[in-house]
Structure formats: C-alpha cells, structure tokens
C-alpha cells in the first residue's frame, strides 16, 4: 500500500492476518471486502449468516477481540491482527458450548437462520456479565432479530446458562 496512491489508481490487494476460531489466516483482501463476505466466501465459514446486510438484524454477529459486532458493517482490511470467533468456533473438543445445548433444550429456534448470530451474541452477553434479569437479557439481545419469533425460548436458553454459571460461582 502506497501513501502516494492517487484516488484514480487501481486499488491494490492488501495483506492482512486474522485469527479465526484459533487458526491464523494470512489473506490478501480488496479494501471493500466486508468481513462477513470474507468469512463466508473466502474462508468457507458459512455459519455466519447474511440477513439484512445493513446492521439491523444481527444474523452476522461474530465475536471480534472479545466483543460482539455486526460483521456486515466492517471492512476486513481494517481488522488486521484481530481474533475472531464465529459460530463454528463455539463448540470445543466436540462438545457443544453450553448455550448451544441450552438452545436445543429450550427449542430456541425455528428456521435457524438467525441462530448463529443469536448464539454469538448470547455467548458475548454472558461474558459481559451485565444481564441478570429477563428484561436485561431481552434488552441486551435486542440487536438480534428472529422472524420466527423464538424470542421467549431464546431468553429461556440464555437464562439457563446464566443460572448454571451463577450456581457454579462463575
């Protein structure tokens, strides 16, 4: 990348590295490649979903450097060096993340399209530690829409994990 590049020059691919689900990837990206598209189309991680593509639905939620974000609203080139967890990275050693199991226990989905985003968002919510009541869970999950209307069961699933964490003293 040259700082003397003029606005009419053909943009170059830019080398970045990302650690995705624990694996470091070196990539040459065009400036306008959005992180969501990079994950799905370049890395084959199609668990992360494109819903609205405008930051309004949360289907594309991933965890970047410990924080949940909408991956549709980020140019990949700007996140050089970041650590990203997608829904594919939630299960460890063949065991589902407790929130994934809780979604199954509570039937917290119908069509499943929003579920990867709900899971990443919910995992981050639990780690943030700010939600204690159902009202707070609902508010802090408001960035994830579910057109099937599984909200009640999603709150149940998150509440189950928060409850078992509290019992375990976490």
């Amino acid at each position: 990348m040259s700082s003397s590049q003029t606005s009419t020059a053909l943009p170059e691919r830019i080398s970045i590295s990302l650690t995705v689900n624990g694996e470091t990837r070196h990539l040459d990206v065009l400036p306008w490649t959005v992180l969501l598209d990079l994950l799905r189309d370049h890395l084959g991680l199609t668990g992360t979903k494109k819903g609205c593509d405008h930051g309004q639905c949360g289907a594309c939620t991933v965890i970047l450097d410990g924080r949940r974000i909408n991956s549709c609203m980020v140019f990949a080139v700007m996140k050089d060096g970041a650590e990203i967890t997608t829904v594919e990275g939630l299960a460890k050693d063949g065991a589902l993340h407790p929130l994934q199991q809780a979604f199954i226990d509570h039937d917290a989905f119908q069509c499943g399209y929003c579920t990867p985003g709900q899971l990443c968002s919910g995992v981050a919510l639990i780690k943030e530690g700010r939600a204690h009541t159902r009202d707070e869970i609902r508010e802090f999950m408001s960035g994830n829409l579910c057109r099937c209307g599984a909200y009640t069961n999603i709150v149940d699933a998150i509440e189950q994990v928060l409850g078992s964490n509290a019992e375990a003293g976490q």
Partner: protein
Amino acid sequence: MNRFSYLRATSIDEAVREAAADPTARFIAGGTNLIDLMKYNVERPTRLIDITRLPLDRIEESDGGGLRIGALVTNDEAAYDPRIHDRYPLLSSAILAGASPQLRNSATTGGNLLQRTRCYYFYDPGTPCNKREPGTGCPATTGRNRIHAILGTSEHCIATHPSDMAVALAALEAVVHIAGPDGERTIALSDFHRLPGDHPEIDTILQHGEIITAVELPSTDFSRNYTYLKLRDRLSYAFALVSVAVALRMEGETIAEARLALGGVAHKPWRDPEAEAMLRGQSAAEGLFASVAACILKDAKGYEDNAFKIDLAKRAIIRALFQAASGTPQSQTDKRIQ
C-alpha cells in the same frame, strides 16, 4: 458499492493531510453508518482513510475537572466507563438507549456525531433529496414523514439528526475538539450541528479535511437529577420519535440550574434557552413544566404523519422533568415509564 483506495493513517497529521488533498476522501472508524450508506450508494468515497489506529481511544481527565472522551472511544466503552457512569450518567443512559450492543461495540464517539439522518428518501438514491443531491427537492415534506422533524425545518429538508448520544452531550454542554489543515479548534456541541436552511446537504460545521479528536465534558455535576426519556415505535433498537434529555441541579426543592435537549424532532439536538430560564429558581410543578413544554414547541410545525410528535414531545418533556426533579431517571432496560 463503489471501489475505493485505502490508507491506514498512522498520525492525525497524515490523516488530515491525506483527506484535505482529496475532496472525495472520507475518514472511517466504526463504519456502522458510512459502510451502510456505501452499500446503498448514498456515499461514494473514492478513498477511505482508516483512523482507527490513531491515539484517540482514551478517556482522560481534562484540565477543568471534566472528562475528555477521545473520538475513537466506542459507544460501549463510553457508556460503561466508571467515570462517565458515575459523573455523567445522563450520557451513559442516552448511549444505552441507542442502537444495539453489537453496534455500540463498533460505533465511535466522533462517528456518532457525524452519522447521517435516517430519512427514507435520503437513503434511497431512486428518489430526489436535497440533502443527498442539492436542488432536487424534498419528497418527505409531502410524502411519508412519521420520523421527520417538527422544529427548525426548512422547505428544503425536514430530516432529523438520529443520535441519542448527541442529545445528552448538548444538555451537558459538551465541547467538540477538532483538528484540521489550519490547526486545532473547539466548538460547543450545540453549535456543531446546523439547521437545514438552504443547505441541507451540510450537516455540521466540520470542514473537509477536519477530524474530530475528542468530546470534552465540563465539570458541572448533573449526576443526581437527570433522565433520558426516549419514545419510539418499538421498545428497543429503534431511532427516537421523540427523546428528552434533562439535567437539573436541585437546591432543596428549588431548580437551581436546568438543561433540556430534545432528540428526534430537528436537524440537530434541540435546546431552548428561554425554556430553560423558566425553570431556574422554581419548584417542580405540573403547571410550570407544561408552560416550559409549550414554550419549546410554540413554533413547531407538523406534517401529515408526524403532527402527533408535537403533543408527544410536550408530554415527554413534562414526564422527563418530573423524572429528573425526583431523581428517578428512566431505566433503559425496564421499559415502563414512571
């Protein structure tokens, strides 16, 4: 989306220099509004200058006993910073009333001020819009205008500024720090955004090449009697139809100092010094608050879908003043309005 070249700026000087040299260059940080607008072809920058690696991500004590919030501090970091939470809870509350946790993790303090209106017509390049393409007209004045402005409009534009954070910052009399090709300057938050007038395409006083470096909060203590009351079409994750930020300083039962700003009703956070003066030296009372509300809305103009906002704003002002005076601010998670 159009193609663009990309530069990762390593200093404020470099960022300013590169932007000033290219009229179609844009700074990018959180990107939550700019990328959205690029996807709609509303914004078509040929060059993006990434400022996220600049040293503007700190919250620091200012010389005057206030706080200086770096332009790159995210909404989430600002809302949950213990100093802001304790000393400027109005700001925390307003930030948490806006967007979603995901967006608040990306969106920055500077970008929040520079976000564009969410007017449907501005967002749709298939329609005329004086803000997007000056001189083409404003379909909102005769079209769908439920979310539009009732104060300070012009025949050319009735868009609103969508920020919640800026409404609180206006009430707190924050100051915006700016760096540019000609050096540094500061401006009161209330003077940062402008009314549409004959040039609705210009949202703020920021010149091309200038960059927001920080927002400074004065030391004035409004941490006890405040509220941010936001009314919208769904209970969360929606822009305000009307919002009210109130900050009072009470001496016993008497209102010693009063600040009030409205969101969702104008092209900028709306303050009315005359109405604020009516509150000083008085006690909380329904009649007084109704007079204040009437004063603020006396020049309001409604359109076909949004005339309801005039009464809604009056009632919200009265309710918010009671919430602030009694020290019972609106919760942003329990949505019941007390």
